[in-house]
């Protein structure tokens, strides 16, 4: 178990280096940062001084080395727009994003699991078809559109919830529901098919033969087996959610990392973009590792 974890951590670190390389290259391709940092009418000498100061006069591989070294120390340079260390800026916005993602994930997991199990138990009935149709539809709804539609109906027309910003729980509800919709649909569909597979097995029949009630058969004997593929998907969905915050936070003006990334991209504030994406990639990798470890807990046959 420990060796497995360490090995996966090492691979994760390598991936992070890879991600840094991608970000580094993307930054290089996008043009000369001094054009952004200095006014248009700056003197060529000043520009050159700036390049030397930023280390841009060094050979590219050396630049990457320096970038990597600084990145591992958490130093991504200063935000061009906000004039403060990029990483601390990103970190200051992170709690808001995590809070939102956590609530959204909770909603998605509960709703997806319950509806998936319900559909499996009601297999072949009208309710099953209804749940499946709703979930297929749910999977096709673009996050940004459904967010706007919710704002329009729930907030603007009915005046039930605030349209944007952060403050109370009620501020969080609409963005979280918006974000939860797609993952809930995906989880529901997978839970249903996985549960149906499990319910057809002999060990489920034996559980019935033993005299278990239907709900005990499903929740005790079925769910843990059925949840093994679902956990993988849930991990992917949680990770994707952190990506999706970019869109959702923009719509709801939620002051989190996602909104920060978009603002930084539109303002060409690359240090912030790099810091945020590196951090999110690190979270992403950590979540994937967590899912793999959870696997071992759920399925006793997996021993690392």
């Amino acid at each position, binding site marked *: 178990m420990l060796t497995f974890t360490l090995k996966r951590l090492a691979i994760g670190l390598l991936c992070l280096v890879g991600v840094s390389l991608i970000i580094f290259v993307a930054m290089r391709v996008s043009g000369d940062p001094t054009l952004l940092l200095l006014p248009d009418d700056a003197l060529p000498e000043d520009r050159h001084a700036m390049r030397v100061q930023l280390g841009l006069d060094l050979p590219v591989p050396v630049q990457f080395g320096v970038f990597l070294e600084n990145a591992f120390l958490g130093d991504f340079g200063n935000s061009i727009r906000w004039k403060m260390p990029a990483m601390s800026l990103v970190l200051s916005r992170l709690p808001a994003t995590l809070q939102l993602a956590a609530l959204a994930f909770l909603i998605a997991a509960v709703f997806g699991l319950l509806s998936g199990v319900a559909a499996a138990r009601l297999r072949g009935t009208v309710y099953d078809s209804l749940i499946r149709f709703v979930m297929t539809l749910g999977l*096709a709804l673009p996050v940004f559109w459904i967010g706007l539609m919710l704002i329009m109906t729930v907030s603007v027309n009915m005046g039930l919830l605030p349209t944007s910003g952060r403050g109370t729980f009620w501020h969080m509800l609409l963005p979280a529901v918006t974000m939860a919709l797609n993952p809930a649909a995906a989880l529901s569909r997978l839970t249903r098919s996985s549960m149906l597979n499990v319910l057809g097995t002999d060990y489920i029949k034996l559980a019935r033969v033993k005299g278990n009630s239907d709900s005990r058969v499903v929740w005790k004997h079925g769910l843990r087996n059925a949840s093994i593929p679902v956990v993988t998907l849930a991990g992917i969905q949680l990770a994707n959610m952190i990506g*999706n915050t*970019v869109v959702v936070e923009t719509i709801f003006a939620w002051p989190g990392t996602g909104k920060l990334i978009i603002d930084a991209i539109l303002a060409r504030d690359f240090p912030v973009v790099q810091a945020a994406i590196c951090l999110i990639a690190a979270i992403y990798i950590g979540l994937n590792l967590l899912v793999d470890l959870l696997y071992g807990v759920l399925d006793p046959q997996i021993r690392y």
Partner: protein
Amino acid sequence: MNTVTNGLAWARLGSGWRRLPIFPVILLAPMVIFGILGTHIAPYDPGATNPVNALKPPSWLIGEGFSHLFGTDYLGRDVFSRVIAGARASLTVSVVGVGIAGCVGICAGLVSGYFGGWAETILMRLVDIQMSMPPILLALLLSASLGTGLWMVIFVVAVVFWTNYARVLRGEVLSVRQRDYVVMARVLGCRSHTILRRHILPNVIDSALVVASLQLGAAVILEASLSFLGLGVQPPAIAWGKMIAEAKLYLATAWWLPFFPGLALVITVLGANMLGDWLRDRLDPKLRNS
């Protein structure tokens, strides 16, 4: 998939055509027609402004017949015509993008699955690295640094989606290459590219097709998200995501502005997803959980 020659997807679909996927076809057909014919069938020039007639609700709701089915926007442009025109960007980006991703991903999958070695190591590490980033962030990073425009968006879509093909195809190739007829062909001294083309590709192309169809909907959403965030195709090209973004200011007054482009988007994605489900159930049920 026991024989060498029946690998072609269409052969297996044979009996299936009698049970056409009616629902997906009904959903997708109008979008495809809009995408191809576009402005030729639109009732108005989608770019023509008419400030006098701005922000009119759908005509059939205010008793004006069929003049502006989906209403008009803040510049008086006909929303219905713009929705029709927007289909082109959406379909072009997703189909071409997923297609290019397919070509690249299939090659990568074949090479890494069949030859293994350093090519496999490099390709699969690349896949790992890319998969440690949320796709939307990768897309944003690329658009931000490379710029926008139709071909850039297509490139972004291709970059985001090639990894899935590579992963799935590599797994398939690994299992196919163990089969007797492939081993036999190698023993008989067939050249690698002949084996790949004649024996392996036909047997894994089904999976690629399924992956492609399942990704189509995701690509449509990605394109729309990028244009919503202002990083998609640029004016004068029309994109649904952009229309929705422009409508943000009119949420309280003109619901039809964000509603109809979004509806078109939902219909397209729903159609594509259902087509993907249908193909997967027919061709490759083992991909169900992926």
